[in-house]
């Protein structure tokens, strides 16, 4: 598939998916009513009676922030995955490999177990204390991994992967250990948090992830040339005039920032970061200039679709979106792999 075709396909399906997402849910709202409400939001002309007030709340306070959040989290996860795979030149690299996810879990658990009493009433910018703990946990663990693998000769990719596995294992063990000090309430909090959740999306959360997402997206795109050079190997990239160490440091920090904030607001959602970049690479080739934005778009759309299905498939109840990202994405990925084998 040509890159142009794929981008056209994704760009066309995005508004479509958003429209479907806006109109489906417990309360059925037809498209024309949605458009009518969008228009009235802009002009603020007619007085709102109670019924249209309810529809407005559902559309703009419940569905829209949730759609935005799902999209942004998907974008950040997928683009970070693409960058990690490029940086480590390893197809299995994903943000979780360098400790982002386990660090986030650890941070969340520490907050739940040791600051339990504070949890109910405190929040910072609409984020709960747990989310804040998760964010700093992921930052902290990744920095340890980074320090461990960096010497005067630069950052060693293989050491970083090993250190990532070791530190993640340690963080995971501390995490399980903590559960023995937790009471009933805390245990439930731990397990629920780890399942991932987009249902309590609100505008402050959207703005946090949106801000981080755009920042990360811009800087990543500017480094796509360096990532391309890194595909040839580190020393080759250095000979091409790229400050490899600086690029690594920057990209690892930004990935942590992006994934850390995504995990903080939505819990751990697997699969998007690992497989979306591979799918896009199989479709359009390894040029990071196109790979990064298209992975971002595809990741956002996948999580959007997954979350829409997650909330309507067993309506009135819903299921964790992580289940659906895998169910939707995995078969498609398998088909692509099988196809590739035939071509060789």
């Amino acid at each position, binding site marked *: 598939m040509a890159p142009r075709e794929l981008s056209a396909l994704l760009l066309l399906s995005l508004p479509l998916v958003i429209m479907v997402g806006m109109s489906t*849910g*417990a*309360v059925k709202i037809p498209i024309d009513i949605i458009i009518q409400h969008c228009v009235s939001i802009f002009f603020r002309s007619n007085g709102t009676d*109670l019924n249209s*007030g*309810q529809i407005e*709340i*559902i559309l703009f*306070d*419940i*569905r829209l922030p949730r759609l935005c959040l799902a999209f942004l989290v998907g974008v950040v996860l997928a683009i970070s995955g693409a960058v990690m795979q490029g940086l480590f030149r390893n197809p299995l690299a994903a943000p979780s490999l360098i400790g982002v996810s386990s660090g986030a879990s650890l941070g969340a658990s520490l907050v739940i177990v040791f600051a339990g009493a504070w949890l*109910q*009433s405190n929040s910072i910018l609409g984020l*709960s204390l747990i989310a804040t703990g998760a964010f700093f946990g992921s930052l902290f663990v990744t920095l340890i991994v980074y320090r461990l693998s960096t010497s005067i000769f630069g950052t060693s990719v293989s050491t970083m992967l090993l250190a990532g596995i070791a530190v993640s294992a340690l963080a995971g063990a501390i995490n399980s250990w903590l*559960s*023995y000090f937790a009471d*009933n309430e805390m*245990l*439930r909090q731990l397990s*629920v948090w780890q399942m991932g*959740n987009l*249902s*309590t999306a609100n505008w402050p959360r959207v703005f946090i992830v949106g801000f981080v997402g755009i920042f990360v997206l811009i800087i990543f795109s500017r480094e796509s040339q360096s990532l391309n050079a890194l595909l040839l190997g580190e020393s080759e990239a250095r000979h091409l005039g790229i400050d490899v160490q600086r690029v690594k440091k920057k990209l690892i920090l930004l990935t942590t920032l992006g994934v850390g904030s995504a995990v903080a607001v939505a819990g751990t959602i697997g699969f998007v970061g690992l497989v979306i970049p591979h799918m896009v690479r199989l479709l359009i080739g390894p040029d990071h200039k196109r790979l990064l934005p298209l992975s971002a778009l595809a990741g956002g759309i996948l999580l959007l679709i997954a979350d829409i299905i997650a*909330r309507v498939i*067993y*309506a*009135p*109840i*819903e*299921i*964790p979106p992580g289940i659906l990202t895998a169910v939707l994405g995995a078969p498609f990925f398998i088909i692509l792999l099988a196809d590739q084998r035939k071509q060789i």
Partner: protein
Amino acid sequence: MKLSTLFVFPIIAVSMFCVLCPVTADSNISEVDDLKREITLRAPAKRIVSLAPNITELLFHIGAGANIVGVDEFSNYPHEAKSITRVNNHSRVNYELILSLQPDLVFAWSSGNGFEIVQRLSELELTVFVIEVTKLSHIPELLKKLGRLTDKTIESKRIAADFQKKLRYLNKSHERKKKVKTFYQIWDDPIMTLNGEHLVSDVIRICGGVNIFATSSPLVPRVNIETIMKFDPEVILSSGTQERLVSWKKTWSRWRNITAVKGGHLYLIPPDLMQRPTYRTLDGATYMCKYLDRYREYGS
């Protein structure tokens, strides 16, 4: 199968039965547990292990508390239960410790402890009696069973009758009242509730309420705010202490188009009174009925 074997089997079965009959008639106690298994004790239980806080509480209530030698980590009521040896935590049961306590009866809670634990305990040749309460009306019968197993028959009968009477009163005084659409929240982020299979839903029904998620499929469904808006509950309940009330109400105040929020009908019930099926569940039910009545009286 040979024809002769067909005859031999019933003969053996009948003769075995006759060997056993005098003993059963003598002093054995037989009760059917909630897995529909017949559990037989040679004598009333004197050394009991309880793997669920509500069973511990019920045993204390009928006066068998002194016979409990081991409890699960959440058994915290009554006060005396706190000093009994703990035999498990959320993920593991200490089988060695249970064996060393030499219990003659172990009470387990099937959906809480899991069937694996029941099976392992049975393999260790312990007598396991499994309990699962999903309706308030099961509690009197359960009390009587516990009484027979622990030789507290008289006391347990009295308490069971008392429970029955109070339950009937609650039932009677609410069955003709206006039905109130009720949402019972057990988790905030994501929002979770309980379906019709749960004891809480039974309490809602007794108070003349309708659990808006009664027909949803898992026992503990995840739901979203939009669905709650669609079902538009008239009363929203949750479990918790009063400290939680302010922040919890504040979270809901964003959704003023829900009848319960608009009318201010958001109430908390102490968790141990509602989520554990015990005698005290009646107190929880009384709270619940009072709150639903408050809606009927003041409306939205």
